[in-house]
């Protein structure tokens, strides 16, 4: 009996281990090692921190990272502000019967994929697109407003594809909130604002934090939306990594920047969790 279980156990664990080792651990080790490889002026490859140092030496790199990080944080906050009322509505106001159907509707943009939703936004936002034509048709204005290829369209695109990853964990956190707590607070004379800030949000905090981490990581690592919707000044940090790997074929430099992105974005998450007093273990649950 015991032996049989062992075989089954190994049968299941070996593919998982192979997946982890060959497709995740080894490539990362290889990338990490190659990030220290540097070709000096004589054309020899040497061990060096040069690839990492260049991030701090050349303002174009760290400025781009700062810009990317700033936008990612702002969009994460925006995603929370926009989705929190929806999540609350779906879990606490609408009856269970409809709320699951509505949640399903929210998932549809994920099914069609990021690229398709982005092209959809292009049709809506372009100078001769749906929104501009409609506003001109209504007589509200004569010349189209430039919306596509701006920071505005980039933010919309990023927001639209990442919002769901905020809604779902917040909803599951709100689900466990006992309605009687809200009723009790209201019976005792608490205002709506007090109820939201003192009871609802603190209870949903782990959900908000895990949603926030997901949204932030998705946005800071996104490549498509800034590249297509962003227009002429939308240099994103991932684009620089892409350029190292594909345009200049400098994989060592690209690897170094990839690890910097991982380190710096993890650091930002760690700092935010510290400031808000959250524990990563609680967020995960």
């Amino acid at each position, binding site marked *: 009996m015991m032996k*049989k279980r062992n*075989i*089954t156990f190994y*049968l299941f664990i070996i593919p998982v281990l192979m997946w982890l080792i060959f497709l995740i651990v080894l490539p990362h080790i290889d990338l990490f090692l190659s990030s220290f490889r540097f070709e000096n002026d004589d054309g020899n490859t040497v061990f060096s921190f040069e690839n990492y140092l260049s991030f701090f030496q*050349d303002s*174009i790199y760290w*400025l*781009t990272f700062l810009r990317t990080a700033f936008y990612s944080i702002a969009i994460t906050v925006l995603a929370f502000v926009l989705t929190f009322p929806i999540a609350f509505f779906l879990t606490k106001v609408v009856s269970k019967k409809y709320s699951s159907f509505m949640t399903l509707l929210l998932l549809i943009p994920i099914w069609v994929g990021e690229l398709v939703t982005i092209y959809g936004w292009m049709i809506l936002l*372009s*100078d*001769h697109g749906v929104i501009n034509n409609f506003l001109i048709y209504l007589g509200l204005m004569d010349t189209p407003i430039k919306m*596509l*290829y701006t920071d505005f369209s980039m933010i919309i695109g990023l927001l639209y594809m990442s919002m769901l990853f905020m809604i779902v964990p917040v909803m599951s956190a709100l689900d466990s909130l006992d309605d009687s707590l809200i009723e009790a607070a209201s019976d005792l004379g608490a205002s709506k604002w007090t109820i939201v800030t003192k009871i609802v949000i603190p209870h949903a905090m782990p959900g908000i934090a895990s949603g926030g981490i997901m949204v932030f990581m998705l946005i800071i690592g996104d490549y498509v939306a800034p*590249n*297509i919707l962003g*227009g*002429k*000044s*939308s*240099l994103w940090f991932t*684009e*620089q990594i892409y*350029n190292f*790997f*594909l*345009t*200049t*074929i*400098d994989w060592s430099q690209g690897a170094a920047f990839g690890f910097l992105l991982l380190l710096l974005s993890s650091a930002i998450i760690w700092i935010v969790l510290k400031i808000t007093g959250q524990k990563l273990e609680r967020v995960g649950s």
Partner: protein
Amino acid sequence: MKKIVLVGAAALMLTSGALMAQETLRLLTWKDYTPPELVSKFEKETGIKVKITYSNNEEMVAKLIATRGGGYDLAQPSQDRIKFVQMKHKIYQPIDYSKVNTGQLITSMVDAVKKNAKVGNDSFGVPFCYGTTGMLVNKKNAPDANDWSDLWNPKYAGKISYRLKRPLLIATALGMGEDPFALYSDKAAYAELMKRVEKKLIDNKNLVKTYWTSGDTQVALIKSGDVDVESGWDGKGWTLHSTNPDIDFVAPKSGALGWIDTFAIPAKSKNIDAAYKWINFALAPENAAFFTNGAGYGTASKDAINYLKPEIKDNFTRTFSKADIDNIKWYPALPAGFDKIESKILERIKAAK
């Protein structure tokens, strides 16, 4: 339990055996280069199954470096991207020109590619098609736009677009009256010229609507009326001209940029015979003409001209005068390290306000 493993292993062997039975050609190429009609014709004639992967110069090279020249049986890099990549990474194998039916090719193009893609005594490319990068212009709104310098002409403010890639840097230098290719032997002077190009493009960034990023966005921008003057490819401009006569391709006065895309065989190609078969098939006059009639790009096949549609021939004579043809600047092989200079400049331009 053992039985299940055995059955699984047997099933795996069977399926892989079935895959082995049919000969395949794994082709790494550009969109538009493999019309479905030609692919099925080739499959019928030879019984070889063609598996196509679309790519571009950067990704093609990156993929082949990652696999050290494996994964594909035939690739189609531009002729200026072969030499220095080959010297450093050795991802291609020499072309055996005795297996190529060079008799059906334009001799001057074969010689040019042979020379530009030469490392040591071997050469690594066979020309397939060529075209130029120039400008797509909406003649109704911008009748006078005819030079690279119109890409920063305030007259067209907000109606200008281009792709933020290295051809733009070359084009800008040409528009400024410089000869960037003459500086390919002098890295410092080239870097200095690129600095001035960078300044030019940043100073005039406010005139640009957006940067186009692919053939599709290039077409969409001018077709929708969002821009009137943009950098672009001749094939795209001519195709647009056939549906909207206001839009046409224009060869810039300071010189259109000429590119030649080639066939190159990856170092670990598993089906070299099929690769040569495809090369000779795709460049046979009738097939090459079919490609040109569809995609609009010129072909390296000599007698294809006999099978071209009249409107396709007309495109060429309408766009290029004798002087324009002599003025086409063909890309020389890109020296090592130059892409780094250019890449940083492109990033600075994109990051600028």
